[in-house]
């Protein structure tokens, strides 16, 4: 019985990640899923819309809210699909959504859970992902030398 963790910074390209993930999982395995949720768009997005794009504050805020809501809805949609898929399989599933500012608990959990491997989907889109937090987790995983399969928007990174 293996224990695996799926970390989602990106909710894009998940079909190919799913294909890979479910080939690795076996009956009786436990899968932890941690979806990293933004509460605001990154600074770079603000820079483009306000400094370069000259959008007014309210217009830029409306836009940012819509971007964040879109990400939340896509996350919800994926997690719902995942639950439905796992319901027909002999797998134990634990899903949590984590604010991108609070990754310490995620790190603590990785250390405590004695995981067999981590699957992680990073984002290539620096306008809608917190690249600093992604790097923080990337460095952390390197440091603890855990087996990992990393993806960028569903495309597997070269080893």
């Amino acid at each position, binding site marked *: 019985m293996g224990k695996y963790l799926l970390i989602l910074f*990106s*909710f*894009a*390209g*998940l*079909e190919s990640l799913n294909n890979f993930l479910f080939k690795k999982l076996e009956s009786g395995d436990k899968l932890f899923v941690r979806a990293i949720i933004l509460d605001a*768009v990154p600074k770079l*997005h603000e820079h*483009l*819309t*306000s*400094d*370069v*794009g*000259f*959008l*007014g*504050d*309210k*217009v*830029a805020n*409306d*836009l940012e809210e*819509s*971007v964040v*809501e*879109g*990400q939340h*809805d*896509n996350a919800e*949609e994926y997690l719902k699909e995942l639950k439905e898929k796992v319901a027909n399989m002999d797998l134990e599933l634990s899903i949590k959504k984590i604010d991108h500012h609070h990754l310490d608990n995620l790190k603590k959990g990785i250390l405590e859970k004695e995981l067999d491997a981590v699957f992680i989907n990073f*984002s*290539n*889109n620096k*306008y*809608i992902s917190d690249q600093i937090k992604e790097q923080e987790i990337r460095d952390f995983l390197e440091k603890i030398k855990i087996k990992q399969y990393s993806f960028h*928007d*569903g495309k597997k990174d070269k080893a």
Partner: protein
Amino acid sequence: MHYIKNIIKYTGIIIFILLLALPTFEGLSPEGQRALAVFVLIMTFWLTNIMPLAITSLLGMALMPLLNIMSVDNTFALFGNKAIFFILGALIISAALYYTGLGSRMAFSLIKVFGNTPRKLLAGTLLTAALMSCLMPEHAVAALLFPIVMEIALSLELKPLESSYGKLLFLSMAWGAIIGGITTYLGGSRNLLAVSILEQQYNMSIGFFEWIKYSWPIPTLMLLFFIFLIWKYFKIELDNIDKAYQVLEEKLAEKGSLSFDEKKLIATLALIIFSWLFLAQIIHISVTAVIGAVLIFVLKIVAWREIEEYVNWGIIIMYGGAIVVATSLVETGATAWLSNQIFSRLDLSIFWFLALLALFTILLTEGVSNVAAVAVILPIAFSISDIYQLNPIIITLSVALPGGLAFMFPMGTPPNAIAFSSGYYKIEDSVKLGIILNIAGWFVYILVLKFYWPLLGLTF
């Protein structure tokens, strides 16, 4: 990219210092040489975006009196240009459209009218964005349409980076706004900035209606081309868009009938547009824009605090600075010197000069803000056009119109950045399709230059 930006930035600073330190070039006045130095510095700062565009403009304005290029009075008087006041009025009008909800009502209605099949919905999004960009700044149109398009994508359960339809929806939104934005002064204020530089240099102008008369074939042909791609070229994975259509109907029903403020705004807009189109000889378009803005307050459609939330005044500073820097080159004789000393040896036919100028502008605007691209290229283009004794209106159109056509990168223009933040497509997607539109745009420009503008008396 960061590396290239640094090279450009430091090269600009070094050339600025060298131009200030070196003895005056033959035939160039000391003020002209200093104006060139400031132009190079500001150009590199705009291109590399190392400071907010508006702050770079302020730096340019401050350097004029500081380096004895133009007097303090002259420098700041240029900021009171009529183009600036047109933009100011247009921004307030656009804010009212956004604030009252009339803008989103128009968007919902238009998209709904155009499309009840997947391809029609794509074409509808494209045309809605384009039509609205004739009335509002293109970036505001993209911001206004974004939540609607996101609702459509979510209602159709389109997966980011997996659904080609999702990708096309957001690209249609951004590119419709971009293509439509070149049609009038309202869609892209850079059009008016270009005309303002034309006025400063040649004491000639292009009216609101005249601009549309010159510009309309380019957006029209490009939209037709894009619709052709939607119908014949793109693969669509959906059979129907019933869920999205239902969302549109629900959202529109939620809005209810037109509010009193919306009705007042429609009446005000009708008056403003009528004046811009038919009374421009009697009432200057900038005066109409300012009167329109005043009317919006008098009729209590919006309050000042709301306008402050919806308008980014940085754009006014950016444009003011661009006019000051471009005018300094003219007033000090730097553009005349450039045309005599540097560009007079150009061995190109007029046609190829114009075609390459448009191509260069299209390429530059892909990487930098299109306002910056126009502000940087136009003064130089004018200096070259003097050699060919070209009608300066052709040069203005040949820079301002292609200068709006940035399709590939998020940093080229805000509608691209807004669409890209949906997460529904990769930069590679917009580059692949954007190149096709860039090439189409260039061909359309050439067709218009060769066959349409001569009919209006713009010969070369």
